[in-house]
């Protein structure tokens, strides 16, 4: 027997309500040690397609974008796009860094495996902690060939502060933990 139209409409309404409940502002932050049940893959795919990214996700995305632009900057010895992803003291340092590389006749291939985690978002400031493996290495700025041996895979721990300007998060500064 075919389903009645009222029944189908009710089902659709319930689905819409469920989707709304799981939407913006509903980003569940689960207390540590109590991970929320993992939804089925099908549900996850639907939810991700319709959800507005959480602020944490936006921050992480901005942070990874920062690495991308920074990596291009030291690879091409080009400071022109750094301002898209960083500001303040971090921007000043990156500009100085590229200038220093240029003077030394070197460039850098950034090879890092980031594992960032947002530890705080307060207003227009966010703090990201990243414990990443670094295998970056020096290259010839012209040929892009490695200079010397590749990096050793050291683990670096950075605490990075991002600030929001309009809709854009930029890295303001970072502090490195040393042993």
């Amino acid at each position, binding site marked *: 027997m075919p389903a009645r139209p009222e029944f189908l409409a009710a089902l659709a309404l319930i689905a819409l309500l469920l989707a709304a409940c799981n939407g913006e502002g509903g980003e569940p932050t689960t207390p540590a040690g109590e991970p929320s049940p993992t939804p089925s893959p099908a549900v996850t795919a639907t939810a991700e397609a319709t959800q507005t990214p959480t602020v944490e996700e936006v921050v992480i995305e901005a942070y990874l974008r920062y690495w991308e632009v920074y990596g291009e900057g030291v690879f091409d010895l080009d400071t022109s796009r750094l301002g898209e992803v960083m500001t303040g003291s971090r921007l000043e340092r990156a500009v100085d860094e590229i200038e220093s590389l240029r003077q030394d006749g070197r460039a850098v291939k950034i090879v890092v495996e980031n594992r960032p985690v947002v530890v705080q978002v307060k207003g227009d400031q966010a703090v990201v902690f990243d414990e990443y493996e670094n295998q970056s290495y020096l290259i010839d700025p012209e040929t892009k060939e490695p200079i010397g041996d590749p*990096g050793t895979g050291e683990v670096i721990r950075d605490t990075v502060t991002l600030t929001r300007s309009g809709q854009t998060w930029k890295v303001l500064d970072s502090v490195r933990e040393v042993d």
Partner: protein
Amino acid sequence: MVAPAKGWGYVLIAALLAGIALLIGPQVASAGQPDGGYTPDPESPTINADISVESNDEGVTIYIAFEESSPGGSTDPSTGGPAGGSGGWSCTSHPMSIGNAMLAWFENEAPLHPGEAPWIVWCNDEFIGIVWLPIAIEPPDIQIIVVPGVSVDPASIAAELRDQVLVPDITVGVNPDVGLVAMPAWFWIEGYDGSPISTSEALGGTTVEVEITPTNYAWSFGDGAAMNTVSLGRPYPQASDIRHSYEQSSLSAGGAFAVTVEISFSVRYRVDGGAWQPLDPISRSFTAAYPVQQLQSVLTGR
């Protein structure tokens, strides 16, 4: 004449070797230079904060050691205190919220810390680090202690104190002064009443306190016999509960048996009056020489 010629030969060889060294030297030096690896953002400000966590029956203690200025810009990292700190330090910890953005990180890290959950540590409103604490832990059960100097590990300081703690000058008491075969001798410890012994050391604004408490007295009477007690024995003329009857004289032992008592101490320490933490036990031995004679019956012709 031969000798000078030989000397010039040595000089020539030395000069030759020096020349070779000059030619090779730079290449060797360059081989010892850092490789082509590169640290991103090499001029990044740094912080030298060492975080360690110790669990005990009363909860957990988070130790934070700063080597240089505080992340908040304070130049006096000398002091700190439990959950709030002092001397300009204010450290707190709270459970980490795991949203979708951090789920991948959590799923990667959690297996490395079974039974634990991530907490974030802040000092002076600056992020210091992530620590993993037992899942069941509650904030009142967490103590945060700031220790000056990253090289200072309270447990290490406590261990040093433990090894240097002054145990009283103990002697082994025995009655009678000269033992007799088959006659019980009474033993006891003199110069120590068995009470805990403590010592402490102040490091800047932090005090590490160590306490040792006897748990066992292992007696060895020198003739192969041994006894474990929890008492110190009782001095004569009281009847001691630590007794031993020798079956032979000490003649074969060089004139006296070496009576040894080894005292085992449990050890604990605490920082700034916080919760006690266990340390590995220690023991101290004390020995006395005890002559034992054989009585011989003499028949008289009465």
